[in-house]
């Protein structure tokens, strides 16, 4: 495995954008992890005058309409964004892999049924569906994660199905069949490890879109009311953007940089996992 890992790392590191993206992500991660050390108070606490300019009253990025620290909000919001991004992607990938694997391996009418079901989710605009789901189940971090997972698994299912369709007719899968291995062993030990690389790439992009979705929901007031999040901060700053631009611009920048970084990392992963394609470019 070492040679694989070495080649993988070398190709990934050759892509400067991906390395920069990884750097930004690490930074966001560190800020999220150390938020309670950097800002040893609740992000909801009043720390100064309302609409304090950036730099005033020890608030690096200014204060909001109630005098809360924007920088602290961003740091605590990073936790929410990363948590929701990671957990909802994990859930979506699990749903997608299970359904896609069954559809691709079984084929025939099972495949047809699962793919029609997938298309049903794909025809409804994902953001609207998420809004409806969160509104029905009342906004909480669990319902937001569930809603995002439910609207973002279909692409995973489609990719996994396509991989399974091509891999299941490969000779090493036939060989496993002839050796008398069980269906579960064939799916999980033979086919799945060979189908994972596109999913890893897709997952990094899905984390980005999950963060965007969460921000969108919070912006509309459908975020978890107990948690500070980037989207909520932009939503709160929206009506006063002309007198307090820092209230929306800094959380906006945080979203922009994180999502951009995830996309760059995704592209780097895709190059490193498909070295033949990358070299042709």
């Amino acid at each position, binding site marked *: 495995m070492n040679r694989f890992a070495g080649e993988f790392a070398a190709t990934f590191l050759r892509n400067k954008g991906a390395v920069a993206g990884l750097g930004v992500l690490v930074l966001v991660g560190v800020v999220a992890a150390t938020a309670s050390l950097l800002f040893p108070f609740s992000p909801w606490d009043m720390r100064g005058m309302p609409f304090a300019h950036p730099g005033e009253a020890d608030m690096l990025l200014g204060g909001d309409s109630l005098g809360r620290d924007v920088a602290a909000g961003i740091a605590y919001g990073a936790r929410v964004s990363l948590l929701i991004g990671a957990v909802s992607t994990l859930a979506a990938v699990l749903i997608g892999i299970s359904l896609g694997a069954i559809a691709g391996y079984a084929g025939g009418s099972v495949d047809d049924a699962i793919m029609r079901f997938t298309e049903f989710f794909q025809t409804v605009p994902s953001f609207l569906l998420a809004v409806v789901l969160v509104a029905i189940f009342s906004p909480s971090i669990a319902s937001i994660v569930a809603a995002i997972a439910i609207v973002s698994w279909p692409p995973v299912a489609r990719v996994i199905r396509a991989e399974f369709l091509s891999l299941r007719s490969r000779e090493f899968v036939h060989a496993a069949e002839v050796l008398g291995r069980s269906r579960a062993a064939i799916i999980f030990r033979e086919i799945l490890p*060979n189908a994972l690389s596109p999913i890893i790439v897709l997952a990094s992009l899905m984390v980005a879109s999950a963060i965007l979705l969460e921000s969108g929901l919070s912006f509309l007031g459908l975020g978890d009311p107990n948690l500070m999040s980037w989207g909520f901060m932009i939503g709160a700053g929206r009506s006063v953007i002309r007198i307090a631009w820092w209230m929306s611009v800094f959380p906006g920048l945080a979203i922009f940089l994180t999502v951009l970084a995830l996309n760059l990392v995704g592209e780097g992963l895709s190059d490193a996992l498909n070295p033949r394609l990358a070299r042709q470019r």
Partner: protein
Amino acid sequence: MSLLAVRDLTIALPKGADRAHAVEAMSFGLEAGEILCIVGESGSGKSVSTGAIVGLLPSALAVTAGSIVFEDRNLLGLSAAEMRLLRGNRIGMIFQEPMTALNPLMRVGDQIAEALKVHGAADSEGRVRELVEAVHLPDPDRIVHSYPHLLSGGQRQRVMIAMALALEPSLLIADEPTTALDVTTQMQILGLIKEIQSRRGMGVLFITHDFGVVAEIADRVVVMQHGRIVESGSAEQVLNQPQHAYTRALIAAVPHRARAIEPPASGRPVLELVSVRKSYLRRGGLFSPHVRVPAVQDADIELRQGETLGLVGESGSGKSTLARCIVNLAKPEEGAIRFHDTDLRRLARRHWKPFRKRIQMVFQDPFASLNPRRRVGEIIAEGPMAHGTPRAVAESKARELLSLVQLDPSAAGRFPHEFSGGQRQRIGIARALAMEPELLIADEPVSALDVSVQAQILTLLEELRQRLGLTMLFITHDLRVAAQVCGRVAVMQRGIIVEQGQTSEVFSNPKHPYTQSLLDSIPGRHWLPPVTR
């Protein structure tokens, strides 16, 4: 003055490759009206050298020394634009893979006309027809207006030849043009190339790995190994009195009819197929019904204890489908597959499991048949483990098997991509043998391998068969291999077994016209390799 003179051609490989030069100090000449075969195994540098002649080297490779003089001009000194004028015009090329060499969205006639137009030839329409007739394509009017997908592999290769000939080049370069084709088609294409060459007096540079093809077509032969020419001379001389040890080894590796005649096997039948029938459903269009395409029709086969039955046929004859039916990778619609006294066809998946131990299979493509993400030891041990052998026992057995197939037992800890094609095929065989099967089905086990490796694998299989008392069903398209390996053969054509019997009898006295035509198509059938050593 020869048509083409290559002198001291040296092409460097990028750093980190397994040798410094792809081609080293290569010199040869080609006269007009002559067919020169460049023979070598994969990686010997034969394709790279012709790439240099037409100026189509991959960008990582560079010519470091030597000259290529064609019609009194040094090709290495020409600009890209000058080279383009020569290609297609004075030098024609045919490639190995006819299925992908044509543009699927363009009618055949237009593609040939395009070759003419690029070099500014007038009156293309009449000329296209002429060319299509010259390569003996049936029904020229229809062919000119059809799209490539309607043509068979052999027909497409004829179209490629027509395009290469469009501007009457003085040099034709053919890079393994018949390797992807069936034997009967191969023979027709070889005949066509030879006919056109003698009619027009072209020089032909023919690259191949097959000494049978060399015997069929060559005037002169150049043998390459590791980027160097190890032997060259007239075909007669190289084929019958090879001087260099490598040439001798290659020629000795060519399968030739040498199996001693054995008494017919008289053990009890291990496997009996009774009128097995399998067809595939092809989806019709939106308004047309599904079509049933028969793949195997009424196949009757009996395999007795300890014998090797060869299943011979061209691609699409249904021989692989039949093998897949036996191991339950495909479900036949009718007939019985009796293994000892059990009809395997009627078994449910879980009742099949005990039989998995007793029937094993070796696959064709050594690069696709091993899971790239598992270690070799696991690959071999997983079968017995799935049947309840404890891990430690299975793993130590895997090591033993690796030495049985003549690999180092330390190979168990490595991944398949670290091995060559021949070594991988040995791993595949070890995997099958780990189950201690009674019946081994080998589906074209050597067709993706070089001749010398092919000979090693065949010897290994034969040794193992005798030592372990295996019964074997050996599927191949190569009649020379079948003649060497099998005691009995069954010949398949379009899903039907047309002839069956003792190998020596079928080959010396074929009853069915199709068997006859297959035998007539064995390349180099009049040449008996000299017995060396």
